């Protein structure tokens, strides 16, 4: 049996006292995998380790069945679009992509560059100097140089950053296609719905810990089903609070700064029944707002949960 394209085994990486990645293990085969986490969660460190740009403090990273530090020939089969906005400004897009292809052993680098630039939708500006390129165009040049040598493994760090909606759609389709062709594609992002559109599988990193991994839909459901805090502003909080607890819609009620904070296990049900309950109780709802719907609290929840089940 062949080894999966990417294997992390007990990988930790720290910088001085800061832990960037803590005891992370996973293995990835063909298809698109999302690497999800907030800024500073360890996504870029994980991708740098995959790309051989740094070495683990402990544990082992194997890429295409080898250790890149010992076997740089494997780079012929790896395409990397890193997060730095780095291009050789004095070259044209075609020259830069062709140069990268040539260095990775492509027989006809000019033809390969033409194809790759066409794939990312830059064929018409291929012969312009990179100096004048917009952020979105630069992102796509980075992607083109990662594709030009037809790699088995693609490591894409936030590839949709700086793209407008039409370009995003185009690049998402391209990434999905690359996965369907049997390549192993790792795409990092801090936006869940973005990852959902291209990756059937996802790894979630929080503060350097791998807190969830599996089918994107399952993780989506996990996130949707988590207990949520809702802040309610009403003209008679105590009366409504009693009704909510009595109806079993909320698990706890707390008062804070003149507002009522409730914790709900099933937010959708609360949303459906709250207006009727308030009307029956003769309470006027002034404001209803979720307090932990941001991504940070989603990650915090996954982190807590991962610790709770004794990872």
């Amino acid at each position: 049996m062949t080894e999966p394209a990417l294997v992390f085994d007990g990988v930790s990486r720290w910088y001085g006292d800061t832990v960037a990645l803590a005891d992370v293990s996973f293995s990835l085969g063909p298809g698109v995998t999302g690497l999800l986490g907030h800024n500073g969660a360890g996504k870029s460190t994980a991708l740098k380790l995959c790309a051989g740009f740094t070495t683990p403090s402990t544990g082992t990273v194997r890429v295409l069945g080898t250790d890149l530090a010992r076997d740089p020939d494997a780079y012929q089969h790896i395409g990397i679009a890193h997060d730095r906005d780095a291009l050789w400004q004095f070259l044209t897009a075609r020259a830069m992509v062709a140069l990268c292809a040539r260095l990775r052993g492509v027989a006809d680098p000019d033809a390969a560059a033409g194809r790759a630039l066409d794939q990312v939708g830059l064929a018409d500006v291929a012969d312009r100097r990179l100096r004048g390129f917009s952020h979105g165009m630069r992102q796509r040049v980075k992607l083109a140089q990662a594709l030009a040598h037809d790699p088995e493994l693609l490591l894409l760090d936030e590839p949709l950053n700086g793209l407008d909606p039409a370009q995003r759609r185009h690049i998402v389709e391209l990434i999905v296609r690359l996965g369907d062709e049997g390549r192993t594609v790792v795409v990092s992002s801090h936006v869940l719905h973005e990852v959902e559109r291209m990756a059937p599988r996802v790894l979630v990193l929080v503060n350097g810990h791998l807190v969830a991994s599996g089918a994107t839909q399952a993780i989506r459901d996990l996130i949707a089903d988590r207990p949520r805090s809702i802040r309610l502003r009403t003209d008679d909080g105590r009366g409504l609070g009693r009704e909510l607890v009595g109806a079993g819609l909320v698990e706890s009620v707390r008062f804070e700064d003149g507002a009522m904070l409730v914790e709900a296990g099933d937010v959708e049900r609360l949303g459906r029944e709250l207006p009727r309950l308030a009307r029956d109780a003769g309470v006027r709802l002034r404001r209803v707002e979720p307090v932990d719907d941001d991504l940070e609290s989603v990650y915090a929840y996954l982190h807590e949960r991962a610790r709770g089940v004794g990872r």
Partner: protein
Amino acid sequence: MIAGAPRISAPVYQLTLRSLFTGKRILALAALALVPVIASTVFASAGEIEPELFWARLLQRLVIPTITAFIAIVIGASAIADEREDGTILYLASTPLSRLTIIVTKIAAAWTATLALLVPAVLASAAIALGGEADTAQIAWPLAGIALAALCYCAVAAWLAMVVRRPVVIGVLYILLWEGSIATFAASADRFSIAAYGRAIAVEGVIDVNAPDASAPAAFVILAAVTALAAWAAARRMTRTELP
């Protein structure tokens, strides 16, 4: 990977040369290379000392310890530091090229660019200072000393660019404090001076005004050894450090 015979990658060599010759820095360095030409012109019109002595002093007190050192350090450091700063070094690092090949290629390109500025300036200075009386040794030995010292400076600057954030600043401080000052009056200190070995080679062809005791072959071996060591250390550092 450091292991494996280093070679020069033609595409990376061309890319680096192109990058070094883009921008205003190269113009500033070219202006610096003109300083000995201007000095020779001033001397030729004044003509107060023997041309041979002037030529020997110009080489040993200005061209080798200051002009060559400065140009080679700035170009050698930039060849790597620019790519580290921009992050473009990651494109080179994610290829089958060994890290030693990348470093050796960068040093070769930096050396080429340095010599492209220095050689015409030295030849023009010689023509002006010595007039028609120059013999081959008066020009060939100094050129050999300049070329080897420049190579060594480029390699050391490349290593500096892998270990510190501001390699040009550190390199220029080294030139000013050590090469330009301490090593010129403390006799034993010039054993640790690249320029001193460059001068040791140059004085095979010109009057010795400020050269160490080392013979030209010894100077040659020492400069080559320091170059190789610096390239190896830079490549080793590139393997172990986090990029960019």
